[in-house]
Every structure is written in structure tokens, then in C-alpha cells.
């Protein structure tokens, strides 16, 4: 079945939605969700780069003989990116918890102690 360019379009849409959420939403948690959406879009883009038509997963254990495989390198890149995304999201959410404890609100317009 020919899927064409559909995964690339979906990845671009995810990145655009994430950018919109990050730039125009007011709640701190929604900003973090926006960043996570951008990360997901980029990861999907990386995995789709390695796809070869009618390829099977690049594992040699119990693999059928003489079959084309998809590229394994983008899968390693995506895995690294997911791990980095986990650490980043954990740190951002910890900062959000402390901001709520100090300022009492999660509205990004009210958290403006440092100006100028």
C-alpha cells in the first residue's frame, strides 16, 4: 500500500500545532504540552526518514531470508531524542511546580517578576 508523503505531512502539522500552542497559550502547563508536541513531530519526522518501501524491521533474530530492511540509524536517533525529551519535560514540569508554589498562579502573564 502506497502511503506516499502522509507521514511527513503529519509531522509538519504536529510541529505547527506545537508552535502555535507554545506561542499563543497562557497556561504554563499548556506551554509544556506545546513543546512536547513539537518534539513528537520531530521524532515522527526522523523515523519516517528511514522507511523503505516494503521493508521489514531491521532485526536479524528470526528474520525471513533475503528481505529488504528499513534503515536502523534514524531509529537510534529517535530513541536518543525521546530520552532527551523525557529529561527536558521533567525539568520543565518541576519548574512549573515551584512557580505555582511561589507565585500562586500558572498564568504566564502574571509571572513577570523579572522585567526590563
Amino acid at each position, binding site marked *: 500500500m502506497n502511503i506516499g508523503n502522509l507521514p511527513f505531512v503529519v509531522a509538519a502539522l504536529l510541529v505547527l500545532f506545537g508552535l502555535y500552542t507554545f506561542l499563543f497559550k497562557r497556561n504554563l502547563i499548556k506551554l509544556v504540552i506545546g513543546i512536547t508536541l513539537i518534539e513528537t513531530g520531530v521524532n515522527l519526522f526522523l523515523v519516517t526518514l528511514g522507511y523503505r518501501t516494503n521493508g521489514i524491521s531491521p*532485526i*536479524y*533474530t*528470526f*528474520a*525471513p531470508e533475503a528481505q529488504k530492511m528499513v534503515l536502523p540509524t534514524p531509529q537510534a536517533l529517535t530513541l536518543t531524542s525521546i530520552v532527551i525529551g523525557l529529561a527536558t519535560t521533567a525539568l520543565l514540569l518541576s519548574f512549573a*511546580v515551584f512557580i505555582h508554589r511561589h507565585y500562586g498562579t500558572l498564568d504566564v502573564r502574571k509571572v513577570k517578576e523579572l522585567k526590563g
Partner: protein
Amino acid sequence: MKNEGMTVIVRTVTRFVYGMIILFGFYVIMHGHLTPGGGFQGGAVVASAFALLLVAFGSSGLKGHVNLHWLQSIEEVGALSFLALAFLGIGTAFFYNLLANSGGFLFGASVPAGPNAGVFAAGGLVPLMNWAVGLKVMTGISAVVIIMLIGSSKEETE
């Protein structure tokens, strides 16, 4: 946030299920060099079992059972053993796979070429590094989840 946990049904099912999730996580870590998986993936599965316990029983139910210092010590052991394994082959290069294809007893069988039935004892340093990373990830993510929910047991640092 409900600190008392969830209903009786959830708690009973969790008591049965969390051991199986931890076992599955260990399987994913251990067979990382043959099937999809490896250190991070298996560690994340085990940490999700821990998060399930936390959600089902609430922070008050787990207060006496969890020691944060133990989690952090095991995490440091995992990190240091990963670096120590990487330093083992420093004679040739950093991260050199010393044990692969060497014929020794510790994962030293020769790696077959092409599609095969999966030789468990092959791979050299890779399964050992999977274990080190898996230890670090499972304790690390569990510690992050606990600290975010309950609060650190140490006093706030100055």
C-alpha cells in the same frame, strides 16, 4: 489530588499485576541485544509499574515503604558501572567492545552474520551496558515521580 489512592478494585488488581509488569520490564532489558528493547525501554517499563503503585495506593499508602536514599544510591551505582564498562577497553579506544567475539564466558560467543535464531550469549559489553542503563533509568524515573508527588525527604537546601 486524592492522596488516599483509588478504589478497592484498582488496588486488588494492582497487587496482582505490578509484579508481572516488573518481570516484563526485566525481560525487555535482558534481551535488548536480540529483540527490540534495551536499557532505556525496559527501565521505563519498570518505572511505569512503580508509577502504577503510586497512583493506586496514593502517597499515604506508600509512605513507609519507599526509601528515597536507596533509589538514589542504586541510580549512582548504575551510572558509575556504565562509565566503568566504557573505560574497560581504553587500550584501544573508549567504548571499545572488549568482550565481543572473544570466546570467554561472559557474553563472548561469536556473533552470527545474517538472519539467525538469536544467540543469547553473544554481544560482548552490550548486554552488560543494557543492565547498567536499565538500573539507572528505572530508579531515576521512580525517584523523579516520587519527588514530584510527595516532596523530598531531605530539607530544602539553602
